[in-house]
């Protein structure tokens, strides 16, 4: 510990945490306004305050994209890497707000919005976390809000989902903490940069292994994915959309930093081979399981399992290009997935609606624009052109082949082949002429999700043609 410890936080420390702080404080502002506002304006006010706060945080982030600040004595690193991940979190949270204008009843919406913002700030903390304590803080902040949000729906399965999420996620946290304790025991430090120069030992490997198991749980990688479909199914639509992107973004940032910068060079390859194997399994099992799903939320849950597998595969071999392409694919996934969720929202009367795959039958003849948008997002998730999903896949394939993990590229192709069934099954349902009498045609009350659909479609298309991969993401520590 340096003498500088005595008088922190310095201005630089606070500046580094500013975006996450803005988001967290916005939650308080939203709650405060809720006390004063008349009942009729509660919903719109809460969402508006949150949107302004998020936009502010997004702008602050963008202004500091080129920075590389090591804050709080190495506990938090702000710079290109964390900025890009945080921007993804901010964008996903903004999109979540548009899906159904907040979550829950009118008198719940300020509270649920606050929880959403706190969760988002937890994820933003994770993106820059560079010691074990900050990582844990971020993960718990993210999860605590989500436990409540999952239970907010009035549906019977919601509480089951929330409880399942609480128990399994706590177990994952248990793995994480135990792993962290062992890592601390082996290295004498919680700082990731110290871990990287520790003499490898059994204790260290055990700690890293348990840590990675915890992370795999949070990322819902196979075989730690079984909680995901149930939780996604039970949670309100907007919360599911949020979880499917923000949780994954935050945890991927942690995994990436840990894999790239926190492992001693002698043991890194051996310790990480199981991670790449788990990623390969996720691509296969996630897509295979998605084949059998009839509920859109469950289907997207399993598809998310596979998609995260693709992103983790980009990190294989810890190549410099891999981070960039992984982030690119995460951005692509964010827009494709949120777009798909927005379409599902537009097809359901309220946030608790169950949207089965069968509801898509003949959609192209009833609502051609919606069907066109959904087709585009599904093509993207399936990795077909002209979408960012296609470009992202080719970049990931190139990096796996270049890093000497061609087998992972092969598995990716196999997984993608299976996923064609999953996604194009819905496209087929939309475009086959059917007897419309049996199809329920529900519509969302508002038109706001259309904004998300349009923005996501534009982003998926543009990113597909011009793959803007972030350039200054390395070094991950200092």
């Amino acid at each position, binding site marked *: 510990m340096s003498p500088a410890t005595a008088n922190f936080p310095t201005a630089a420390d606070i500046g580094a945490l500013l975006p996450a702080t803005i988001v967290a404080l916005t939650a308080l502002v939203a709650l405060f306004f809720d006390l004063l506002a008349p009942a009729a304006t509660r919903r719109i006010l809460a969402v508006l305050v949150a949107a302004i706060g998020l936009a502010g945080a997004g702008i602050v982030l963008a202004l500091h994209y080129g920075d590389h600040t090591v804050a709080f004595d190495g506990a938090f690193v702000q710079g290109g890497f964390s900025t890009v991940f945080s921007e993804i979190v901010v964008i996903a949270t903004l999109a979540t707000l548009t899906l159904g204008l907040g979550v829950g009843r009118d008198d719940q919406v300020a509270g649920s919005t606050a929880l959403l913002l706190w969760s988002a700030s937890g994820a933003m903390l994770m993106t820059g976390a560079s010691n074990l304590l900050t990582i844990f803080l971020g993960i718990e902040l993210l999860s605590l809000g989500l436990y409540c949000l999952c239970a907010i729906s009035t549906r019977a399965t919601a509480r089951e989902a929330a409880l399942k999420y609480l128990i399994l996620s706590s177990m994952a946290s248990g793995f994480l903490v135990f792993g962290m304790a062992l890592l601390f025991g082996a290295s004498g430090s919680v700082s990731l940069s110290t871990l990287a120069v520790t003499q490898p030992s059994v204790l260290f490997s055990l700690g890293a292994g348990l840590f990675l198991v915890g992370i795999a749980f949070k990322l819902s990688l196979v075989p730690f994915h079984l909680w995901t479909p149930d939780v996604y199914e039970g949670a309100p639509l907007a919360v599911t959309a949020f979880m499917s992107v923000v949780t994954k973004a935050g945890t991927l940032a942690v995994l990436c930093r840990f894999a790239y910068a926190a492992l001693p060079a002698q043991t890194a390859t051996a310790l990480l081979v199981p991670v790449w194997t788990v990623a390969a399994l996720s691509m296969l099992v996630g897509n295979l399981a998605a084949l059998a799903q009839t509920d859109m939320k469950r289907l997207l849950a399993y598809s998310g399992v596979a998609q995260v597998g693709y992103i983790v595969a980009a990190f294989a071999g810890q190549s410099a*290009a891999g981070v960039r*392409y992984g982030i690119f694919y995460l951005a692509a996934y964010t827009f494709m997935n949120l777009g798909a969720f927005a379409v599902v929202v537009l097809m359901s009367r309220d946030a608790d609606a169950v949207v089965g795959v069968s509801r898509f039958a003949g959609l*192209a003849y009833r609502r*051609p624009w919606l069907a*066109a948008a959904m087709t585009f997002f599904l*093509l993207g998730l399936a*990795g*077909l*052109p*002209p979408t960012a999903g*296609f470009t992202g*896949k*080719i*970049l990931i*394939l*190139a*990096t796996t*082949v*270049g890093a000497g993990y*061609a087998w992972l*590229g*092969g598995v*990716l*192709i196999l997984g*993608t*082949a299976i996923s*064609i*069934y999953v996604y*194009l099954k819905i*496209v*087929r349902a939309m*475009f*086959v*002429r059917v007897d419309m009498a049996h199809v329920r045609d529900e519509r969302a009350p508002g038109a706001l999700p259309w904004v998300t659909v349009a923005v996501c479609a534009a982003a998926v298309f543009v990113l597909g*043609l011009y*793959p803007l*991969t972030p350039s200054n993401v390395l070094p991950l520590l200092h």
Partner: protein
Amino acid sequence: MTVTALVIGPILLGFILYALPKGADGFARGTGIAVAALAFLAIALKPDAPDASVPWLARPFTAAFHLGYGPISYWVVLLLAAVIFGGLLAVRVPRAREFTAQMLVLQGAMNGVFLAKDLLLFALFWDLMLIPVFLLMLGWGMPARGARSRGTAAWRYLIYNVAGGLTLLLATAAFGVVSGSTDVIGAAAATGAIGEVWGAWIFAGFAFAFLVKTPVWPLHTWMPDTYAELPPPVVAAVSAVQSKAGLYGFIVIGLPFLTTQMHAAAPLMFVLGLVALLYGAFIALTQDDAKRVLAYSSLSHLGLILIGIFSFNPIALAGAAVYIIAHGLFSAAGFLTLGYVEEREETRSLAHLGGLAAENPRLCGALLVTALGALGLPGLAGFAGELLILTGVYAAGFWWAALVALVPIVIAAGYMLRLFQTIMHGPKGADLPERHDLTWREGLALAPLIVGLVLLGINPHAVASFALTQPTIGVTGVAGNR
């Protein structure tokens, strides 16, 4: 500029048409026909249009949006414009606006496949061109009576071809990483860019995609259903142009960059090609569905082209190029004509059709020219292609293959004449309604294809010349700039 417009223009217009209000059917169709005609004129009048290239990726390998004419692709896109023009001119479908929109997207995507000079762009358009066909088959498919549920054939088409597209994608990524650039199609002197270690895997990826697309036995099972079910204008475009993408790939990617692997795979390809040739021909003899006769004859003919390419002989390669275009001409004309027959008689079953010639002399003439083109009548394009391929294969020392390949050519006369005879002559089916002869629109739709069939038959050199200037195939690369 011209080449960019050929790719972007139809796709963009397709989306605009899709966005038009319902009921704009006539306008949409007019636009579609005009676009196809314009494209045809633009290609025909400006054969030396310069390449267009915009940088795309810099890492992990160089890639560019690079489009331009090549010696074969020039004729293919010209053919495609004629096919789309003919297809849209006389088609009668419900929801014509959406149909036209999809057709234009299909045209743009297929132009992209053949004009792409960048491998990654090639792969992109390869996948893209599958989607409109899939959607067209779902929305306008014409399953034969008693067929399985709607969409089955579309599904099979998509799964097979996307599986091929994915191995193509993996091979492209590996190609890019190994060679450092994918902006290579048509580039001179690129031999040996791919080493021995990766070469075999990369070739396997490409070959799988190309063989599925062509298709060859035993990867062909998606094809007869697809061809039978697609509406005539679409199947004309798919069989005339899309199915050539694989063969084209072997010529512009396989021969110059994966020469060693191509040579190593030649015995296998010869077997696959010969099996396709014979199998397709024999099955075509027994089919009752008229469209399936043509589908299986396509399988047979494309097998011949495959043999031509893998004999590594300049004459055979010239023949392959000529036959790629020739087959496009007569199969497109054939599918369109059968479409007109089905429209009049509401069946395409050979058991029910018969005696149309008396009432429909012009329709009869159209089908006759097509059938003669397909069976290789001297003077028409099919003959030129077949002769060049067989001569080349023989000259390359594969006399036994040339001998075997003669058999299905004889059988071709059998099934094509059977098709023609059953539909046009013989006793008239009692339950067939009386219908009018070929309208001027339908005639105009077929005219460019039939004129092309004759012109190419007289002067195959126009298409073939590029290959004949190559001293040795597969050593210097064959796909020089036009």
